[in-house]
């Protein structure tokens, strides 16, 4: 499949990659290998690992790191950033609307059934105003590029998106292992992300909070696959990293257990899913949560970031309607387009999808991490048959999209430097007053030749992402 290479064009090298290309041409393969090993050693020593729950193997695995940076020009980034801001604003407006007047449903711009019948909708949130009116404080918007000016949104992550620590540590690694290459470019800095996040979190403290709000990061604990990230962010922001058992609720107020006795908590950046937040409000068997937390939240005594119930905005079944949200709430045309999507719940769409299955990508609406998906062009006859049967049995659980020719970037592989497919997850921060985006994001790369699956759980790696300032 022909696809857009971010470094090479037919008659040469694209401008943003000029110096990277020169560097690659000069550096012998062995040298690059050495750099990659240095980076891995660095990650291993710092302990930047993630857990994969499979039998045997290394319980603390490294995500492969590629030493060739991904470069984005200033102009391209500017357009992307405007689109991201617009999208995140619309998603927030949608969340507010869904939990209040449901105007968009009454205007029939989104079918009622996929919102009201959606298990991700949290009726507990109806009529509630979260502090600052913010729902998705941190959003990870997954983008793919297919041409010079064509970025598409592949999916939205409005619950507890992760990966930002890799974005930050990848830059640190590059500064250590290829300092000359870094300093020969003018790259937009990203290291202030934790400060921006802290500002955002402070800005949504409950209005009753006097003085400096006490902000904490709530983690499921050291066995969680993203634990490194949780500890990294807490550390960088200088806030306590708490587990459920460190917090308790009294008189609808949240406190943490400290060596000096109980201390009041105002804002919780939680990296625990809704279902596990509070055994009294949600799943009773949750050992990770804090009994009474949701009541304290509803009483307006504590802020949660992200808000409860944001899953309804990033559901794959809702995704096709995000452009509609942008038009409806903002009165603007979407700057970042969606990928064309067929909802198998719709009989017409289903018929089309079944006919064209070998060309399409099929995803489960509730799936994540690259599991439970079919890539038509790469699938065997048996896999296609199996998916057809599944689609007929449970059409509402699936959406389908054309197989996109994801852009490629030069990547170090066993055979040398070769193009590999990439995506991009920028992190968008939204506070009580404004939206902030640190330039770039996390680039994930499919290390296997021809593969379009970039998820780390499926053998994907990461790259440092450079947005050029000049």
């Amino acid at each position, binding site marked *: 499949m022909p696809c857009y290479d971010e470094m090479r064009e037919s008659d040469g090298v694209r401008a943003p990659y000029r110096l990277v290309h020169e560097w690659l041409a000069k550096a012998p393969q062995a040298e690059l290998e050495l750099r990659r090993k240095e980076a891995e050693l660095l990650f*291993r020593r*710092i302990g930047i690992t993630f857990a994969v729950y499979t039998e045997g193997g290394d319980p603390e695995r490294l995500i492969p790191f590629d030493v060739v940076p991904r470069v984005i020009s200033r102009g391209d980034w500017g357009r992307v950033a405007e689109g991201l801001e617009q999208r995140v604003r619309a998603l927030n407006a949608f969340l507010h609307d869904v939990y209040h007047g449901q105007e968009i449903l009454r205007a029939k711009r989104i079918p009622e059934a996929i919102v009201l019948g959606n298990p991700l909708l949290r009726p507990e949130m109806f009529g509630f105003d979260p502090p600052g009116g913010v729902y998705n404080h941190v959003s990870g918007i997954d983008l793919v590029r297919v041409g010079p000016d064509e970025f598409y949104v592949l999916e939205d992550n409005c619950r507890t998106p992760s990966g930002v620590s890799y974005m930050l540590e990848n830059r640190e690694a590059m500064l250590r292992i290829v300092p000359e290459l870094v300093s020969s470019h003018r790259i937009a800095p990203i290291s202030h992300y934790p400060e921006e996040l802290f500002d955002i979190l402070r800005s949504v403290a409950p209005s009753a909070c006097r003085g400096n709000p006490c902000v904490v990061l709530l983690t499921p604990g050291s066995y969680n696959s993203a634990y490194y990230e949780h*500890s990294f962010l807490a550390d960088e922001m200088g806030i306590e990293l*708490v587990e459920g058992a*460190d917090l308790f609720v009294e008189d609808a107020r949240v406190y943490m*257990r*400290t*060596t000096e006795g109980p201390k009041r908590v105002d804002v919780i950046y939680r990296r625990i899913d809704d279902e596990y937040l509070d055994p009294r409000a949600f799943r009773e068997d949750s050992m990770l949560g804090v009994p009474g937390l949701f009541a304290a939240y509803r009483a307006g005594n504590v802020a949660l970031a992200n808000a409860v119930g944001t899953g309804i905005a990033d559901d794959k079944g809702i995704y096709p309607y995000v452009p509609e949200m942008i038009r409806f709430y903002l009165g603007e045309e979407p700057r970042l387009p969606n990928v064309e999507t067929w909802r198998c719940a719709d009989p017409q769409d289903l018929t089309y999808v079944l006919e064209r299955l070998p060309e399409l990508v099929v995803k489960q609406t509730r799936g994540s991490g690259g599991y439970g998906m079919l890539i038509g062009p790469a699938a065997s006859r048996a896999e296609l048959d199996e998916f057809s049967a599944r689609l007929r049995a449970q059409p509402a659980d699936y959406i389908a999209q054309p197989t996109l020719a994801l852009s490629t970037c030069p990547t170090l592989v066993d055979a040398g430097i070769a193009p590999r497919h990439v995506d991009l997850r920028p992190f968008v921060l939204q506070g009580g007053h404004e939206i902030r985006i640190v330039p770039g994001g996390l680039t994930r790369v499919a290390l296997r030749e021809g593969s379009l699956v970039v998820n780390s759980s499926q053998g994907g790696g990461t790259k440092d992402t450079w947005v050029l300032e000049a």
Partner: protein
Amino acid sequence: MLSRTADGLYWLARYMERAENVARILSAGQRIASLTRTVGSEGNEWESTLVAAGCAEGYRDKHGEVTAGGVVDFLVRDPDNPSSVLSCLETARRNARAVRTALTADMWETLNDTWLELRTFESFEGAGGERILRLLEWVKHRSLLFNGAYANTMLRNDAYYFTQLGTFLERADNTARILDVKYHVLLPKSEAVGGPLDYCQWESILRAVSALRAYHWVYHARLAPWMIAELLILRPEMPRSLCACYAQITRHLELLTEAYGGRRGECHRRAGEIHARLRYGRIDAIMQSGLHEFLTEIVDDGIALGRDVGELYLLG
């Protein structure tokens, strides 16, 4: 700070200290086992090594018969033994990971490197004494490195005080146990004998706490049991003596009180009381009223003190 963080730091320090202590006890035990063979005595060195390491009961449940190979494996490697050197290092790192934000970068790197290296060691089954001694040396070095890393890089605040409490409570417990296992060879009646076996027993006690040289510097005399006991119980200048450990414990408890606006509890009273016993005790009086009884009481009081610290600070 979070109670759980304080708890993690405290146990992290305790387990690093314990790893070092078990390694020291074991090296001393190995040495004396090979020496007793040359002086022609059977002895039950391995038994007392287990007791000193606080692992006798666990060993009996698992193995029954005490053999050199069994004891070494149980104390060095056995994952079922929570006090084996490797288990201690694993637990220390697990605690460290859970409270990473409270560690300095140097502390974390020291601990993580230790753990990474640990995983490259192969099985010790049938390994020669030489390889085991090398491993024990390595453990000692890693623990010393950790102590240096935290002493030199941590802010002097509550996090540091809790780490120190862990180190010194564990060390006091260890010194008391080593002495107690051997109390019989320190009793006056064996002084008259003073044969080569006694001498090497005394030496092994001092070696287990790295105090052989210190002894000579302090006393300028041949080894004598009551002076050994005095050095390890009452001498404030000996860094692994009970008195020195409790001086640090009371000091850091006081610093916590200061940091927390005067808040104090039973742990302060108990630590002060134990310290006073050591600070103003006399060795002849201790010997007369029973060395074993004295040490048992210190060990038990130390355990109670650990509980008190937990109640006031660590359990929230």
